[in-house]
């Protein structure tokens, strides 16, 4: 028994990889449909957008690159679709050099799904270098960092941008990022220009932004795939995050089971060794 447990403790990690692979693939093929509970930070973001009157301007900064697409795309899509359904005027942009492709794809896909027209319902400004400089520039006049949109059209030639100047005309800024960029949005856009800021971040980064939630510097926070699944449920657009929750639940449970069995085996082996020595 002791030898068996010892072997188990030293087992080739590829067996674990195999179990993880099964744990991810099976729920994606055969969905379980586990219920998703809604947490307050995510609900706060939803309520902040839902309470906006039609025609309100929102800035959505998609500050992530292809590596974090699996975790951040679902929340980006859910938020974009929510804004479009509320008939808000959506301005999308990115502060990451590798972001334009991802941001453009998300914007255009959601606009198409919600039958929105470019230039009238939404605009995509693309990427500009210098995180703080861009955020501060928008505070004065969006035409300072973005005289044109991503496609080279002058801002003033876009119907929905007539009459829009800066954060004073903006109801909320939503930043979706796998980096520390949301901290810059809070520091410059919220602190200096008093515009509401909400964030969607990866699960690992979410813990870093709880202080901003506590102090009220962020109106809400969507953390990781679970947060994205919650938002999809609120908006009524179950997508990749919702489906991913089953897989994530299985994997988390698998890890916990492995840890528990590993600890039991460890204590039994340690006890036998002590008895053997004694």
């Amino acid at each position, binding site marked *: 028994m002791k030898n068996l447990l010892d072997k188990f403790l030293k087992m080739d990690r590829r067996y674990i990889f195999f*179990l*993880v692979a099964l744990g991810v693939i099976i729920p994606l093929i055969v969905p379980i449909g*586990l*219920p998703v509970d809604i947490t307050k930070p995510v609900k706060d973001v939803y309520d902040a957008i839902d309470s906006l009157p039609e025609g309100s301007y929102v800035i959505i900064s998609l500050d992530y690159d292809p590596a974090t*697409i699996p975790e951040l795309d679902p929340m980006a899509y859910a938020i974009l679709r929510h804004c479009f359904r509320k008939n808000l005027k959506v301005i999308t942009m990115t502060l990451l050099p590798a972001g334009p492709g991802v941001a453009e794809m998300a914007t255009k896909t959601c606009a198409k799904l919600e039958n929105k027209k470019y230039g009238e319902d939404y605009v995509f400004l693309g990427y500009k270098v210098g995180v703080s400089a861009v955020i501060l520039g928008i505070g004065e006049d969006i035409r300072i960092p973005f005289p044109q949109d991503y496609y080279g059209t002058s801002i003033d030639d876009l119907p929905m941008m007539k009459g829009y100047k800066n954060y004073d005309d903006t109801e909320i800024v939503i930043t979706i990022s796998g980096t520390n960029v949301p901290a810059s949005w809070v520091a410059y856009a919220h602190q200096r220009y008093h515009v509401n800021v909400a964030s969607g971040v990866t699960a690992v980064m979410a813990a870093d932004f709880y202080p901003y939630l506590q102090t009220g510097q962020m109106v809400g926070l969507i953390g990781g795939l679970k947060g994205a699944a919650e938002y999809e449920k609120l908006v009524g657009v179950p997508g990749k995050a919702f489906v991913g929750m089953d897989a994530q639940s299985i994997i*988390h*449970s698998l890890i916990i089971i492995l840890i528990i069995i*590993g*600890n039991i085996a460890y204590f039994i082996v340690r006890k036998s060794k002590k008895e053997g020595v004694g």
Partner: protein
Amino acid sequence: MKRELPLFICALMGITMIIQYFIPHPYSIKFYQTVIGWFIIIMTFAFVLGIMSIARVHWNKVSRKQKDWFYSLVALISLSVTLFVGFAFGIERGKPFMLIFEYIQVPMESTMFSLLAFYIASAAFRTFRARTFEATLLLIAAVIVMLGRVPIGYMISSKIPAISGWILDIPNLAAKRGIMIGVGLGSISMGLKIILGVERSWLGTIGGE
């Protein structure tokens, strides 16, 4: 002179930028923006040197047919082809450069990122042992937070997400803030040491020699 000049420039620019932080005058801001501009230019030139470095390393491996030289050949060919198509056809969407990025690089990067799922499982199994009191505490907190972040935790008990949230909001945040304060002070100390010339390792010398 080889060491004195860089030390002097470092001290001068360091003290100047500290003073600049306290001067809101437009001339001060213009100076700051100029320095940032210089920095970007220097970084860009350094990229050229970086490409030369990687090309030389892999070329040496290929030409000397050292172990695994084939991988170096693949690296060199990839570098050359990407550079060529970027310069020849541009980098707009739909051009070969972006096709390489979207259909080769992006999937490969996502694949590497996805390794985390497997490695977290194997690392957790290998190392999460209740050897000491602290390790046990870590173990219990990790289990609660893992369950709290997925629907299955809520199904087991509605209290689990709440406790998980408390762990993240209170003890986790307190520890993080403590570390961040220490890191902040360490950064200031390191910065002062570099500006005052106490720390000279960045010059290629070791420990102020």
